[in-house]
């Protein structure tokens, strides 16, 4: 796709759905990579949020593509769950930090075997 084509598309005022999906995939992969590779709990937590929002983006894109409202509804549900999760997750992280004085996820592994 050469710049002229891109300029043509932008001139029409409509970004194709595939672009949104590509962005969503990129965001999701960044989230996954962060989740797996980073050791700070806060960062891991933010990566989870990033993955959720990447999915939200695909929902919205498909909802716009198919002119259906259910995609929007799913996005709202995901937001609500993410908010609740953020509240609980942050509380857990606070307590863990108070007890262990660390936010390194590799050191918090007592729930095993």
């Amino acid at each position, binding site marked *: 796709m050469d710049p002229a084509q891109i300029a043509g598309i932008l001139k029409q005022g409509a970004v194709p759905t595939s672009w949104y999906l590509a962005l969503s995939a990129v965001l999701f992969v960044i989230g*996954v990579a962060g*989740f*797996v590779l980073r050791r700070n709990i806060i960062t891991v937590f933010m990566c989870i949020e990033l993955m959720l929002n990447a999915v939200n983006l695909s929902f919205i894109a498909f909802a716009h593509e198919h002119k259906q409202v259910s995609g929007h509804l799913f996005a709202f549900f995901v937001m609500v769950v993410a908010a609740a999760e953020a509240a609980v997750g942050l509380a857990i992280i606070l307590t863990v930090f108070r007890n262990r004085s660390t936010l390194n*996820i*590799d050191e*918090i*592994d007592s*729930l*095993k*075997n």
Partner: protein
Amino acid sequence: MFKLWLIPLLPFLGFLINGIFGRKLPKLVINAVAIGSVVASFLWVALVVGPSTDWGEHKVQAHYFTWIQSGNFNVGWDFAVDKLTMIMLMIVTGIGSLIHIYATSYMDHEGGYYRFFAYLNLFMFFMLNLVLAANYLILFVGWEGVGLCSYLLIGFYFHKKSATNAGNKAFIVNRVGDFGFALAMFLVFINFGTLNFNGVFAAAPGKPVETLTAIALLMLVGAAGKSAQIPLYVWLPDAMEGPTPVSALIHAATMVTAGVYMCSRSSVIFLHAPAAMQVVALIGLATAVFAATIGITQYDIKKVFAYSTVSQLGYMFLGVGVGAFSAGIWHLMTHAFFKALLFLGAGSVIHACHGEQDMRQMGGLRKYAPWTCLVLACGSLAIAGFPGTSGFFSKDAILTAAYAHAPWMFWVGVVTAGMTAFYVWRAFWMTFWGDYRGHGKPHESSWVMLAPLMVLAVLSLAGGFLFNVPEMLKDMFPEHGEVPEEHMLMAISVAAGLIGIALSWYMYVVNTELSGKIANALGGVYRLVNDKYRVDEAYDAAIVEPIIHGSSAVLWKTIDQGVIDGAVNGIGARAQNVGGLLRRIQSGNIRSYATWVLAGSVVVIILMGIAGGVR
């Protein structure tokens, strides 16, 4: 008509009452129920069933209900009474009544009083069932039932290891015999299509000799188990672990003679199988000699009489084997009289000596227990075949028939008769003559015990005159040819008995050291006989030990522990191993979990891609 069902049912009711409520009943009630039920059944037989028939060719038959109906296999609960059954009924209920009366005094101080009488009544029920049966299966019910009661009563003192072992031995050895009897019944059914005595005996003469011989030999296996014949006699001497009235009733007078009764009942089959008859005679003769030699060397008074019982049962089989069925039954009856007397007398002696059974610890009892001495003398005379006593008639009848069959059998029988007289009188002299060698002061038994002994003593002396069994049964069994030398044979067998008595008197009263010297002179032979020819040891080595070791090595250690336990434990162990591996995945490290999830997702996506993706 004659309410035959009443005869076995009365003792059964006694068993139910004493068995269920006996623990709470006073002794007087237990006695009344136990004795009353047996005496009532005796009176019913003696006063109602017996006299009300002329017994010519007559046979009372009764069909109560169909027990088993399967295809053409039809077994009814049938009773029949002919003269043979009548004689058995009189013996069983009559001797049974006397022994029940005796036992109330003998068992007075024993625990489990009600249990004892419940078992004894149950025994009477099964024994009467056996005798009354009109087909082989009902006979077999009684046959197994008396075996059960025998087992229960041998092991009556179940806290004694030797008693429980003896009970097990009796039961297991009898299983061998019963297996033979069961096979005989199968053969009878296959060949005759019925188990009814009437049908079988009517059809038997037309069947091939081989079939009848096979049936007769298998019946002999059963009879040898129940009636303690070689090679299955080993349980009877051990059965003396039971209380003495049990030894008298079950292991001398009634149950052990069931084999003789069964062979006589099946006389038609046996008569058409001469080879089987010969085997019966040989086994009977061998058992008679064999057991008599062991009896000579025993010191336990009950063991002497136990081997004597085995020997006398051998005589009965000799009688049956040479075709003198009525003589066998006659000896069965007189033996029931004098052997019950000897055993009950031995019980009285044992009571007198405070539970001592070793004759070396007795002696001189005629001063302390004169009545016991007198009645035992009567019994010992009878078993020795003293002229005029009951044993004289029946033994003579058997020996004469044996002479007619084969003279050498007569001579072996005469030698056995001499040995019988010797060992019984040896026991008599050791017990009643000389000086008392035991502990404490011996005492005479109560009149409750002595009264049945006196009745039996009279029967032992006069039973031969009173009941001429061959005369009664002469139309049931074929006639026996006259033997010209009969009086000579009689004189020889009497002489053998008298020599035996005299020899025992010389060895155990006059010259008491002689027996020890002879035993020393014989050395190894004496020890072999004293150890009962080590037959028990041989059976142990040949049969019991291989089975025990085989079961423990193959069945227990290899199959049970190895295969079955191994399979169950192996499954458990594999589950643990796999679980242990899977456990390592749960490391507690969140990033590793995430990696697993990622890897799983990637795999799923790749698989979906391979499968054609989601369109």
